[in-house]
């Protein structure tokens, strides 16, 4: 318990991941599914950034004096997560686009109705 509290970033991100996953899993509405997916992604980003963060160190932005290499955290995870976010956004966009297409073709975005319509 204590470990969970100490690493509250990680715990939080895991909870977030769970929420996202459950949303993805349980909701029939495609939009909600995509939202769930996004929450999951966010959880992962949070996790990653949390891993990159060391308490007591600063972000690698030099304000005034240079604190020496020990004073800053590694900027890499942050930078990477930026990439990740971009990717996630593009996927979300793509998914939404597909959802629109589905709505056009099937007239609904409820998954069980789509399944029933396809009849297979």
């Amino acid at each position, binding site marked *: 318990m204590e470990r969970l509290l100490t690493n509250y970033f990680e715990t939080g991100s895991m909870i977030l991941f769970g929420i996202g*996953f459950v949303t*993805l*899993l*349980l909701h*029939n509405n495609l939009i909600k*599914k995509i939202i769930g997916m996004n929450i999951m992604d966010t959880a992962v980003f949070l996790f990653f950034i949390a891993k990159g963060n060391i308490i007591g160190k600063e972000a690698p932005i030099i304000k005034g004096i240079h604190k020496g290499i020990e004073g800053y955290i590694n900027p890499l995870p942050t930078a990477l997560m930026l990439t990740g976010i971009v990717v996630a956004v593009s996927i979300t966009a793509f998914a939404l686009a597909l959802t629109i297409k589905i709505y056009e073709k099937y007239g609904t975005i409820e*998954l*069980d109705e789509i*399944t029933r319509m396809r009849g*297979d």
Partner: protein
Amino acid sequence: MIGQIALLIILLLPAVAGFVGYLIGKKSERNRDLFNIIITGIEFLIVILLYKEVSNAPVNLFISDIMGTGLHLKLDIFRYIFVWISSFIWFLTTMYSTQYLIKYKNRNRYYAFFMLTLASTIGIFLSENILNLFTFFEIMSFTSYALIIHDEDQYALDAGKIYIGMAIAGGMVLLMGLFLLYEYTGVLNITEIGEKLIQLGNIKYLISFLIIVGFGVKASIVPLHVWVSKVYPAAPTPASAILSGVLLKTGLFGILITTQYLMQGDFMISAVILILGLMNMFIGGLLALFQRNIKRILAYSGMSQAGYILVGIGLMGVLKENKLIAVYGTLYHIINHALFKVLLFMGTGIIYMVLHEVSINQIKGFGKHKQGLKIVFLVGFLAIIGMPGFNGFISKTLLHEALAEAGHRYPNIGLTIAGMIFTISSSFTVAYMLKIFITVFMENDEKYKGQFKEPICKRALLPMVVLSVAVIYIGMRPETVLTIIDQAIKNFGVDGEIEIHFYTFNNIKASLFTIGLGVGIYVIFVRKYLRKKDGNSSFYVNPSLNWFNLERNVYEPSLMAIFTSTSVVFHVIDRGVVNFVHYTSNKVNKFSGMQIKRDSYGQIKDSYVEMNSLKDFLNKLAKNMNSLTYSVFIVATILVVTLVMLTF
């Protein structure tokens, strides 16, 4: 050298002639008949001419490579007797056939197989290599089959089925014996096997037993005789004649070879043969007594006569170094039986030829006014019952002597009984022959008076006359045959000659006693018990039809039982794999179709109905697998499982 060529010729000539005759027959029936008679005549002539050669020294012929082991032929006087009698009988029967078969169908086929049978029979008697002997033996079975079912009616086909079945089964048993024989001795030459075989342990009894069973089918030894009563009546008469006259002898020849050459006259085997012979004699005689079909009577008679020969063969072994008289008796009886049995069959055949009927109830009185036929038939009759002056008397006397000799040497109750059985069987012979003769030739029936003279053609009667003459001649002058047999006995490891005066008071008395006994049986048993009156006419009944019958009560049911049960087992195996697959898939289907939800909750059939069996459930599952939700669910499951598995 010339002897060897002659040997080959007598073997191959009939075989080739069979085919040539077939071709000729397609053009002209007459020429074919003539051709066949000439060929058998030539055959007989060559055999006669060979006598000189053979009496000097046995003729040997070895051709390597044939059948892998080579063809080894040998002709000594012992075999010569058989060869001679075969070719003689064949010559006469061919002549007879040309007349007998004149109205039959498929004559061409008949003659072809007739000649082939001759070839194979000669082959049997000539073979020195036991494998060759087996080969010819089998060929003979098949070729004679074609003769037996010549009529092609249901009865003949059934009889043929039994015949070929038993012949093949016998052949297989024989072959089994040969397998063992070769495996243990490594040689195939009949004269050489004996030395090796005698050194073996008890396995030699198994071997000889198998071989004797194999030959025994042809020789109609007792439990194997069931085919006899069916086949003889079914076959055309010339075929029956050679079946009984010659083919029967091939079996006996085989048994003789086995006991004397292979087993070197082993006592145990000989004793068994002796007992079997007595049984044959008795049972054959007894059954003959009941029959109404002449051919069947003669068939059983043949069986009974085979018993005499078997007794002779048995006695040879039992008497060991004193077997001389038994050898004489056996060989003599072989010749005699061939002669008179063929004669009798031919006589029957003539009746059949005219009336197409052989039941004595129907043909009663047929021969009353046909003097020629009556006389020759009478000769045969007298010969078979052993009337002094006819050849049967000689051989029966010899055999009786031999039996007495055995009784003298081994005085025990068994041989005394054997002597009694011998006498009783002989009297049976008298009784059943009287039954035929009196009914057919003595009784009066108006409807046959003066009729049917012409069909009894000379060509058919001629062979019968020849046979009758032969019967009487060697009955009156047994020395002619005995001198030949004198030379043959060397082959049996004994030497010397016998001096027997046949026409002594004692012998004649014994013979007449037997005949008297037979007449007694006829009068008391046959006339009183088997003959029933029906108004004016009388007829014979056959109570033995309902008796216990080996074929009907033992062989058939047990074969059927074995056949059915094994068939069932093998069917199960046969379908095994396939059925197993089907069964499993059925079970799975059944299981998956099983109702999960019982719809016994009253009448309310709600939406669950669509999913009330495992199959539906699976189908639905498979359908849902395609949906996104399930996919994610699966992923989640796998993820959880993996992580749990890995971390703990």
